[in-house]
């Protein structure tokens, strides 16, 4: 009889431990799901862990200069998204790439394009040019890396092909990328398209 009581007592002990362990596991599941629970009779502290998210989005993902031609009296035309058209018949364009950091972490941004001036615009290689210019919308939105300046036009696809443009792009902030094209009078004709890519990761 005494041995049976000891057996039941031991079984109850193990069962209680398993229940305690189950409660611990339940708490782990709740924390993993980023849910918040708390109970206090007087005062207490709720610790909340917000998962890190890195997300960059093009608010405006299209720059379309429309149709135009180089003035017959000129050897090249220059157009950009600052609204400037020189020696060409394109309508002034001010819609530029607008990029926002939707995440909650600083991000590092790299810029690259699918084509360079020769493959995109064609014509006289010493004249054709395809450039981009990164600017902050809010002060301090993008902290540029060493050797790269905001507000300056750079030729695309020069070395390195994918260039770091922001060492730290702050959450909730915006940057713009202007595009500038120099089009020789013997350039490619028709509708020309290129895709620019921003690669990003948490900085």
């Amino acid at each position, binding site marked *: 009889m005494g041995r*049976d*009581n000891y*057996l*039941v007592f*031991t*079984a*109850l002990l*193990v*069962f209680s*431990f*398993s*229940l305690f*362990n*189950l409660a*611990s*596991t339940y708490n*782990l*599941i709740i924390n993993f799901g980023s849910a918040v629970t708390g109970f206090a009779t007087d005062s207490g502290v709720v610790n909340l862990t917000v998962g*890190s*998210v*890195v*997300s960059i*989005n*093009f608010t405006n*993902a*299209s*720059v*379309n*200069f*429309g*149709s*135009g*031609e*180089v*003035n*017959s009296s000129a050897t090249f035309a220059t157009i950009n998204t600052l609204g400037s058209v020189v020696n060409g*018949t*394109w309508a002034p364009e001010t819609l530029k*790439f607008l*990029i926002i950091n939707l995440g909650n972490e600083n991000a590092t941004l790299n810029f690259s394009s699918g084509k360079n001036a020769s493959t995109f*615009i064609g014509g006289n290689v010493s004249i054709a040019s395809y450039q981009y210019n990164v600017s902050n919308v809010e002060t301090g939105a993008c902290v540029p890396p060493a050797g790269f300046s905001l507000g300056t036009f750079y030729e695309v696809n020069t070395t390195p092909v994918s260039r770091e443009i922001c060492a730290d792009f702050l959450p909730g902030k915006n940057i713009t990328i202007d*595009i500038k*094209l120099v*089009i020789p*009078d013997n*350039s490619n*004709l*028709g*509708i*020309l*398209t*290129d*895709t*620019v*890519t*921003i*690669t*990003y*990761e*948490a900085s």
Partner: protein
Amino acid sequence: MNEKQRLAVILLVIAIILLVTSVVIEISIAGAQKAREEDSKGRVSEATGVVQLEILSSKEGGVNGEG
């Protein structure tokens, strides 16, 4: 097997099932947390935009390049 022994066996079986389940869940969660952390740190993503224009011939309508 008397009543107390049966009760002890049932409790032990339930306890073992609960313990094994807890251990499996905790191991799974630990693995998922590690994967989540590595994913958010090392992941490189991308976003794309398009540049487009149409270039018309300025020499159109002429012969030998005459406008």
